[in-house]
């Protein structure tokens, strides 16, 4: 049993975080379908409660150790040695916070826009939150897989039921894409289980060394699941469809948290468990990331649909993240993790803002817009902040992440670093073009009579603005979470041989 | 004493005839008869083995086979009658309302 920190919180915080939303969903299940208001209020209060509980993670986290914290372990299926095993470390703690925060915003943004079947909507939303937190907290490979797949059902319904015109095609495409990828991972998990002596405990799996050939095979099996989720270059075509068709809350959750799980998967499973294969595969991964960055960027230049453009931009941004992760040096990985958080904040906010304008004009075609700045100045300035965060302007969070990634990428492979750096030019190109096309120039008739953002919408976007500038100006608060864990990860990946890791653990204990 | 493999070849031949009949004939009754033929072929081989091995199991199984064949025939004919009452045909080719 690998050494972990004992749960200092006094109460099983991670289980509470997972099952509080699920309990909320169950409560709504029992409520009468008619009173919309009550359903909305309950879901909002549950999401806020979860967020407040998760805040104690932020404060109670011990930043000096790479060991797992808030650990909980209960027998689940003794015969298969499968356990309900939760824990957090520097890499995963931030994403739990992001999920809880984003869920509140989703509930707020769909306050008026969701009219039909509100009960099922908020149930799916809360189940989503529970599953998301479960994915980030689970240390048992099967528990991770179960939460990973369980997320498909609510997301499928979110896109399919409350989505746009051809939502059905997008929902099925999303479902099948992810499912085909993750079933291959399931086979990989089981092969790993048997080779490592019948255990799903990730920490134990990390201490073992696996033959290179097997590592390679497993790497590609995991790649199938994680690359689809990221989405990396060849398997990204589901994202634009899913985003354009999903309702605002759906695409916010999809952009802010769901696609982070792919990159998180690489960090938590592919790299530490299969160090030699990861190292061998970095050239391939770097090429795919660079293609994603440039390909995603250029394609945005010719987009006509607002959400589709932002979707492709997140393909480009996630290209940055994977570049950072597979740079296999401290700057790259930490930049990658921070950029995953930033992308969640920025693209989430962009989709929230698109939701705000979409609720008024019900059109996503960019050509219909123009001169919104003179009609909705506050909205324009907020969108401006997020545009420049997405472009990676210094003092915004985008810059910190992108700079560290490019630095790490350049250090790992100069060609990748230089080509990826061109991404920031293309990024500026399409984002500014979008901003100009929508907000500047003469006010188009469709947009003429709109009134500016109301208090609720403002409330949804304000936390995002605060985060953009907070990470932009003082990122160390967030970076300090990661240092020990990333250090440990890199020792394992670059070190490669198990003894080095064991030695490291020994020192930890002796210290 | 007739050697064992003669019985076996007879049984195999009858079995093949029965199967061939079952596969080619169109009329359900004829298909039933060819089925019975196959079952009897099996009876032949069972009895011959039982005699050859000086063991009673074969004979017991033959009794069971015969009773089951009778029961089967009864049920089969009953179903054919209801079928006939609905569709006035015993031809297998007409019975393809469900396909795909």
């Amino acid at each position, binding site marked *: 049993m690998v050494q972990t920190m004992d749960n200092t919180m006094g109460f099983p915080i991670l289980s509470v975080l997972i099952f509080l939303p699920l309990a909320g969903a169950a409560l709504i299940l029992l409520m009468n379908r008619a009173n919309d208001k009550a359903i909305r209020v309950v879901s909002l209060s549950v999401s806020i409660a979860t967020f407040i509980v998760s805040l104690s993670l932020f404060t109670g986290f011990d930043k000096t150790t790479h060991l797992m914290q808030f650990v909980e372990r209960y027998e689940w299926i003794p015969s298969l040695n499968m356990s309900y095993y939760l824990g957090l470390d520097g890499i995963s703690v931030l994403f739990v916070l992001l999920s809880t925060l984003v869920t509140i915003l989703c509930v707020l943004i769909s306050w008026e826009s969701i009219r039909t079947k509100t009960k099922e909507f908020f149930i799916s939303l809360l189940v989503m939150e529970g599953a998301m937190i479960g994915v980030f907290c689970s240390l048992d490979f099967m528990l991770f897989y179960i939460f990973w797949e369980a997320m498909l059902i609510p997301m499928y319904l979110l896109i399919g039921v409350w989505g746009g015109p051809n939502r059905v095609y997008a929902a099925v495409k999303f479902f099948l894409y992810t499912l085909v990828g993750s079933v291959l991972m399931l086979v990989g998990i089981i092969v790993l289980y048997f080779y490592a002596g019948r255990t799903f405990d990730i920490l134990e799996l990390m201490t073992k060394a696996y033959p290179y050939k097997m590592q390679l095979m497993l790497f590609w099996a995991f790649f199938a699941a994680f690359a689809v989720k990221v989405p990396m270059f060849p398997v990204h075509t589901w994202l634009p469809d899913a985003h354009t068709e999903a309702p605002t809350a759906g695409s916010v959750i999809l952009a802010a948290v769901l696609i982070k799980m792919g990159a998180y998967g690489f960090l938590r499973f592919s790299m530490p468990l299969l160090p030699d294969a990861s190292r061998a595969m970095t050239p391939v991964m770097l090429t795919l990331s660079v293609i994603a960055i440039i*390909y995603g960027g250029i*394609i945005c230049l010719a987009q006509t649909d607002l959400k589709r453009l932002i979707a492709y931009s997140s393909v480009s941004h996630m290209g940055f993240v994977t570049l950072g992760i597979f740079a296999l040096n401290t700057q790259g990985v*930490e930049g990658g993790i921070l950029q995953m958080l930033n992308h969640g904040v920025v693209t989430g906010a962009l989709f929230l803002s698109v939701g705000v304008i979409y609720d008024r004009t019900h059109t996503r075609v960019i050509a219909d817009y123009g001169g919104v700045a003179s009609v909705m100045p506050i909205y324009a300035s907020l969108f401006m902040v997020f545009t*420049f965060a997405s472009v990676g*302007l210094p003092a915004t969070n985008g810059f910190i992440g992108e700079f560290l990634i490019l630095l790490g990428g350049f250090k790992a492979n100069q060609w990748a670093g230089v080509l990826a750096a061109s991404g920031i030019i293309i990024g500026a190109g399409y984002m500014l073009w979008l901003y100009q096309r929508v907000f*500047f120039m003469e006010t188009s008739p469709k947009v003429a009579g709109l009134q500016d953002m109301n208090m609720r919408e403002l409330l949804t976007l304000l936390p995002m603005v605060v985060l953009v500038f907070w990470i932009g*100006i003082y990122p*160390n608060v967030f970076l300090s979470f990661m240092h020990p864990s990333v250090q440990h990860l890199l020792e394992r990946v670059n070190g490669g041989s198990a003894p080095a890791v064991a030695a490291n653990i020994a020192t930890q204990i002796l210290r | 004493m007739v050697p064992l493999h003669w019985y076996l070849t007879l049984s195999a031949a009858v079995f093949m005839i029965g199967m061939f009949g079952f596969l080619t004939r169109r009329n359900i009754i004829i298909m039933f008869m060819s089925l019975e033929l196959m079952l009897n072929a099996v009876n032949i081989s069972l009895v011959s083995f039982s005699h050859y091995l000086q063991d009673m199991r074969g004979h017991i199984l033959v009794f069971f086979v015969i009773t089951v064949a009778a029961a089967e025939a009864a049920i089969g004919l009953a179903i054919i009658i209801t079928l006939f009452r609905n569709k006035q045909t015993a031809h297998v080719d007409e019975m393809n309302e469900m396909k795909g």
Partner: protein
Amino acid sequence: MNSYALIPFLPLAAFVINILFGRRYLKENAHWVSILAVAASWVLAVSALVDVAGGNKINFDLYTWMLSGGFKVSVGFLIDQLTVVMLIVVTTCSTLIHIYSVGYMHGDSGYYRFFSYLSLFTFSMLMLVMANNFLQLYFGWEGVGLCSYFLIGYYFNKKSASDAGKKAFIVNRFGDFGFGIGIFVVFLTFGTVYYEPVFSQAAGLAGATYNFLGYDVHLMTLIALLLFCGSIGKSAQMPLHVWLPDAMEGPTPVSALIHAATMVTAGVFLVARCSPIFSLSDTALMVVALTGAITSLFAATIGLVQNDLKRIIAYSTVSQLGYMFLACGVGAYTAGIFHLYTHAFFKALLFLCAGSVMHAMGGELDIQKMGNLKKYMPVTYMTMLIASFSISGIPGLAGFFSKDEILWMAYAGESPVGKFVWAIGTVVAFLTAFYSFRLIFLTFHGKFRGTHEQEHHLHESPKSMTIPLMILCVGAVAAGWVGIPALIGENIGVHNYIAEFMKPVLGHPEGHGTHGEEMMVMLISIAVGLSGIGLAYFMYIVRPELPERLTQQFRAVHRVLFNKYYVDELYSFIIVRPAIWTAKNVLIGITDARIIEALVNGVPNAIGALSSGLRKVQTGIMQHYATIMATGILIFVAIMLMR
């Protein structure tokens, strides 16, 4: 000690106050907040000047900005001679232009927004100038880029303005691309991005080579050229100059502040700040000098034929910036900074005069529709005349001293391209004088060519606009006296203060030429200036029909110059249009639609087709079922026996 930290943060506070409370509360008097803030920073800047003149250098960190593995950077301030000079330039111009804008922007709906952007710009420029590490320099660098985007696109409901803003930002991004990679190389070789350690260790690595993208390159040249990419972008030098002329879409005070005095000079500041690195690599210096020279010649020729008042001045700025880079290229960083210092005054003055002319002419900018304005706008005329004299290098005025210094340093410096660059510089001096006075004569002399009611509307600008003009005019004249070269200085008992002042930071290149040569160079530059003015006088006052005939004769040349060598069209042809074309046809059309989507939809369709095919096998006829079973049995029997 850290009261100097207030210099940038005062304008920041002004920005925050204006942007948050501007709409509802401050409205008209939003300018008080900004002006007070920038004035306070000006006072602090002066005290910093005194402090640095007193000999101590200030370098302190405020807080750790980024810490990831070996990479540590913080927000910190380095105030030395170079910084102080820049501080003075930025704060002075900024204050004067803030005051000028009160009058100019009077009655504009986004009044508070304009002043908040001005304060934000001043904050970013000051952060850029006072940075003590490359990353904070980059922070200020992109900050000013952002503010120029806001201010150029201030009249955002005009398509041309918002296009110009976007163009400025994206072209700057091209420059920052190289700049960013330069910072990476600096960090990877020196292990830190702070100026202090980098410059001190630079000498040690003089001869080192670096494997960049597979090629072994001389390290110092690589870093210098990469950093120079940033300067090209920001200071609108040769390949990336296209955005500056279009930036004239912004209000005139903006052009004055950003596109004349401060932001565009950031590139020169960068080269000066990194002089230890640049001076270690001759090739880099040569590239800088040549780029500067070519750009100044290129811009000057275009300036000859333009008819838009502000565009002429814009091209003149590009040309003068080329001068400054030419100076740095030949190793005379002090001369470059000195020219930057003087240029800030007279160029800002030119722009503000253009602003007041525009104000009077109701927004009309085409100089062919003006004329004889000196009757109606004496103050503007006088100040603009002095500024033109100064830029043409008439002795005694600011422009003469700094330009002459550069030409002398080019001629006498030991840079291999010195002489060639000096020749181009002299030609450019002639062209500068010519187009400056072409502008003066066409706008202020001759008879009025505008519409009647424009003429009726002509009036001198209000006090709040003319006072800054006068102050700047004093600067345009007196600014040069700080750096009178030794040749003249001895016999009138004044020595070259700025040279001595900048010596500790930028060093002092010893020009090895005799006094005679120095005198000869000076005389040539004066002669060239005067002949330029004379030719302009001859062509536009004495024989006004001459320009018309010349354009007929050299029709082709005129058209090329008038269309700015078709550089804009060239760029959109090789970069912008193919990018969008690839996006539309190749990426969406082929890869996404055909290859990936075909695969993604193709596989399920194929399975669907297979499914309906297999469905037919289920014919519903029992015979077929039985035969399939029988064949199944046969196959399995065969498998078993054959094995």
